[in-house]
């Protein structure tokens, strides 16, 4: 997917528009990248393409701190935005891995659902306006700087999760929210027999955590401890008084569920949370593949165990992160030696899709990656999605072939 030549990185929206318009007229193709943290996801482009980077399209367009709104150019990194907002006591719930590299545009284009969405909602719900360069090079704006707006179709939300196939996001306007004052994280061993009960206990807590995971593997990267047992990790945030109460509730709930002892710390809580999110896309070079499966919280523990067992049957090493509040299951299978196991990765891919038709490949550098079912089963409305692509990008100029159903 990466092209050999250095990417073109325009500094203005106009310059970007001109490049896109030229390519579109001349039959050229464009692959668009921000921080490239998600370059391991999606199908290969159907034709060689000019690499276009948004990394120089940066800067704050408007920062109305009293109104809790901000508008930025799409190439700004999440860390850049977060640091700025933190200084104002605000935040946007971006949960992306590697925020020092990931860009606002790439994050919106990927449209992933963060672990904190159970508490804070989806990233798309914070997007109040956008500017996008369409395939013909024209700029279309939608929304604005007001927090409520129902003037016409909600175009901004349509662009979220479109993987750069409808247009190139160049500006995003967000509403922000006040940052919670305190954060605390819990880490505890999670033996297999306690899992289902621990999940139910977490779901029933009156004071909802911001994020809660069961993590198997990845330990070194998360808490420096490489014990073999699974972990439960729970992030709480809010006022001090609320955290005191949440802590009591959580301790007793986990205790009743049979979770042995709990490590609690406030300093570095958010960093620990970020390390778990970073682990989602951690790549073990050519020998691993990471899948994501959307599930319901009530089913996720069991589904995670099923795919772990499946991987074991293929003699693969597995690491798993289950998002206890939202239900997502992330499985990294490794030990896919490319020399001897070239064919096996494909049969494993078939098997996992038989069990979980919607499984998506989110990170993989394996040479056989092109043969994997990267997006899982086609969504019910795939034909309508194709029609949208055809209407927005009739010449297939932008990221052709990368997305769902070869869009």
């Amino acid at each position, binding site marked *: 997917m990466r092209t050999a030549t250095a990417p073109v990185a325009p500094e203005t929206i106009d310059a970007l528009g001109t490049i896109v318009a030229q390519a579109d007229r001349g039959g050229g193709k464009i692959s668009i990248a921000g921080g490239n943290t998600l370059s391991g996801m999606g199908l290969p482009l159907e034709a060689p393409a000019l690499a276009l980077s948004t990394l120089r399209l940066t800067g704050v367009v408007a920062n*109305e701190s*009293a*109104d809790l*709104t901000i508008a930025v150019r799409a190439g700004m990194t999440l860390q850049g935005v977060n640091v700025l907002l933190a200084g104002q006591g*605000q935040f946007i719930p971006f949960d992306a891995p590697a925020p020092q590299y990931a860009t606002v545009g790439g994050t919106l284009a990927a449209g992933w659902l963060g672990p904190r969405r159970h508490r804070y*909602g*989806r990233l*798309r*719900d914070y997007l109040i306006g956008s500017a*996008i360069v369409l395939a013909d090079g*024209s700029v*279309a*704006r*939608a*929304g*604005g*700087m*007001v*927090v*409520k*707006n*129902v*003037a*016409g*179709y*909600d*175009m901004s*939300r*349509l662009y*979220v*999760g*479109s993987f750069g196939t*409808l247009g190139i996001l160049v500006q995003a306007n967000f509403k922000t*929210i*006040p*940052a919670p004052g305190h954060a605390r994280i819990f880490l505890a061993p999670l033996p297999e027999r306690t899992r289902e009960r621990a999940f139910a206990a977490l779901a029933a807590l*009156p*004071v909802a955590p911001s994020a809660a995971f069961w993590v198997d593997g990845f330990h070194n990267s998360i808490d420096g401890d490489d014990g073999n047992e699974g972990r439960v990790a729970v992030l709480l945030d*809010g*006022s001090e*008084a*609320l955290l005191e*109460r949440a802590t009591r509730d959580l301790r007793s709930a986990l205790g009743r569920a049979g979770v042995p002892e709990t490590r609690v710390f406030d300093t570095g809580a958010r960093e620990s949370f970020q390390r778990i999110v970073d682990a989602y896309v951690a790549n073990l070079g050519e020998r691993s593949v990471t899948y994501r499966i959307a599930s*319901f*919280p009530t089913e996720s523990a069991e589904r995670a165990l099923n795919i772990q067992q499946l991987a074991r049957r293929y003699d693969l090493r597995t690491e798993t992160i289950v998002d206890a509040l939202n239900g997502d299951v992330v499985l990294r299978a490794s030990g896919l030696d490319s020399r001897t196991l070239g064919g096996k990765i494909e049969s494993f891919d078939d098997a996992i899709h038989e069990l979980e038709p*919607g499984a998506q490949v989110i990170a993989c550098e394996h040479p056989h990656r092109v043969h994997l079912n990267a*997006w899982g089963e*086609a*969504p*019910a*409305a795939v034909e*309508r*999605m194709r*029609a*949208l692509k055809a*209407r*927005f990008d009739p010449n297939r100029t932008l990221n052709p072939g990368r*997305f769902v*159903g070869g*869009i």
Partner: protein
Amino acid sequence: MKRLGMLRERLIGALGTDGVKTEPEDLSVYAFDAYTDGGRPLAVVLPRSTNEVSAVVKIAREFGEPIVARGAGTGLCGGAVPAAGGIVISTMRMNRILELDAANRRARVEPGLINLDLSRRVAADGLFFAPDPSSQQISTIGGNIATNAGGPHCLSYGTTVNHVLGLEVVDETGEVFTTSIDDSGYDLTAALVGSEGTLGIVTSAWVRLLAQPEAVRVWVAAFDQMEAASEAVSAIVAAGIVPTALEMMDSVIVTAVEAAFHAGYPTGAAAVLLVESAGFEEDVAAAESAIRAIVNQHGARYMRGARTAAERAALWAGRKGAAGATGRIAPNYYTQDVCVPRSKLPTALRAVAAAAAEHAITVGNVFHAGDGNLHPLLMYDRRDRRQVAAVVLTGNAILESAIELGGTISGEHGIGWEKRDAMTRVYTTADLAAMGRVRDVFDPRRRLNPEKIFPSGARCSEVTPP
């Protein structure tokens, strides 16, 4: 005439006689919504299922007739009026909860279900449906989805789009398709919410339910100046406090509401602020002291909390019945709906007052202050042509001032028939063309709720690229 008879026969064949209305006196009701009249349908149908909706759409297509979906008809922008005639599909009889998955806090419902009925029916499970337009006692989930309805509580819960997980939709050809926000691919769910019935007819929806908060507290604060009250609102939000609702009423409204409902608002104040905080005991208690301090700093006369659930309900009933209460002032009212950046509220309110004064129109303000979403109610008598003209001019002036302040032409009621020509004031041809591309995919022949959202007249061809 013969064609109409055939159409009628076909519709009856699909839905039975009790599902089809073609008598003039029945039809005239459907020429109106809460905004105005806008054309007369040929027939109104009341399907009971997705299949019946699909059958009607296919028949309409054969006869080349447009389709307008209709919930409760409470829309305030003429969205549900059959501007180009054709067939109105009323969702009235599709009002069931099809599935309730309390453990995962979601439900699948039919579009004709009344908003408040959903919350009532899931209350026993400790759940509720968050979007709460003031019309929630009569408006439907389908209508809420089609307009992306807001309400007092969307300050903290967000608008309807945040609470829709997936849709079942009948398209312009009669084909049924489904969307889910967890599907890979484009977020068609988000694109369909707020599309005002121009992209498809929603026949069922998966919606998100929320756990009822453990603590809810409501306060009223009274101010001698509207400006000070607006500044207090900005200060509360800027201080990092997010109440579940921050609603404001001016003296015109408070007087009308007190006379009608005895809601318990202080009279004689220039502005009354209604604040609700909900969530955990700890948070609600902290919010109360912080809000009290800010409100005092801004010169509030006093702040008082509802002591009982009944007092709380009365305060809310007053707020939600505010528009109706203006019947004591004038026979008719027109609700403008604009949204401005929150910090521009005082300026926007001054502009409203100036416009009303210039055209000699009585205006009452009751609005979602926390969102910067203004609803000036312009009071008039429909029988007086001079007053009607003055209301139109005042409404336009308010719209214009909101645009100048960097705001938008609708915060929650939608564009519909009323504001479609104003779309060109906030969007360029390229912006509208992008919307037109979406329409091309779902409704290429423009048969679903034609004459809505997109500007009329010559600009239409520019709007839709060839």
